[in-house]
């Protein structure tokens, strides 16, 4: 079901007592300017491997839940 963007989170950092400004779209500044490199892909695989290891060590998931989760994640390597 379509819903609206969530409300802004309350700030927990120290800020002057003034209302927050509207959201500004800065995506162009932050957008990736270069194609994914082989190093990027290697880092992504390492990141995913870390998640798989985290699932293997999860103290609360059952073996069946771990197997299903790892199988799902391994499709993204």
């Amino acid at each position, binding site marked *: 079901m379509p*819903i609206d963007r969530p409300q802004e989170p*309350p700030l927990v950092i120290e800020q002057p007592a003034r209302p927050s*400004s509207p*959201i*500004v779209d800065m*995506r162009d500044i932050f957008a990736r300017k270069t194609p994914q490199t082989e190093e990027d892909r290697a880092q992504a695989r390492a990141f995913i491997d*870390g998640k798989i290891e985290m699932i293997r060590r999860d103290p609360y998931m059952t073996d069946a839940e771990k197997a299903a989760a790892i199988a799902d994640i391994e499709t993204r390597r």
Partner: protein
Amino acid sequence: MFDWARSDPWQTDVPFTSLDNYVTTMAAHGNSYPVLPVWNSTWAIGADTYRNEALLYNNVRSGWDLVYQYDYAATDAQQKNGWIGSWAPIVETFQSPYINTNQMGALGAQISGSDSNGVWGSWGLLSPSNSYVRTDNVGFQLVFLDPNYAFVVNS
């Protein structure tokens, strides 16, 4: 930034040194820490369409800057059933050779969820009702922990 909804998951490409407008300070347990306030969300924007979004708080103009957004096809069942991933702040510790790293972690982690009618609830600090503290005891040692919304580790 890593977006699990994409086949090219590494997104955004800016050096940390360009984040001066976003890095600020926050006090915790008698220390002042440099922090990068982040607000990330996933929600349904249409029938079988979801949006991932990330914003950084610009402390110069006192407002949130949208830095990343990605819309993708997914059903409610895909988003809510089975393995949907983990989402809370974490320092992943899979090896022991870390030595003398700076203190790092997360402060003031909050969550808000919507009900079945799409009405968002209030933001609240992470608690045992929606998260758990994971302690692997590998590579890093705890500096402090405020369960479940703040922690700092070092080595």
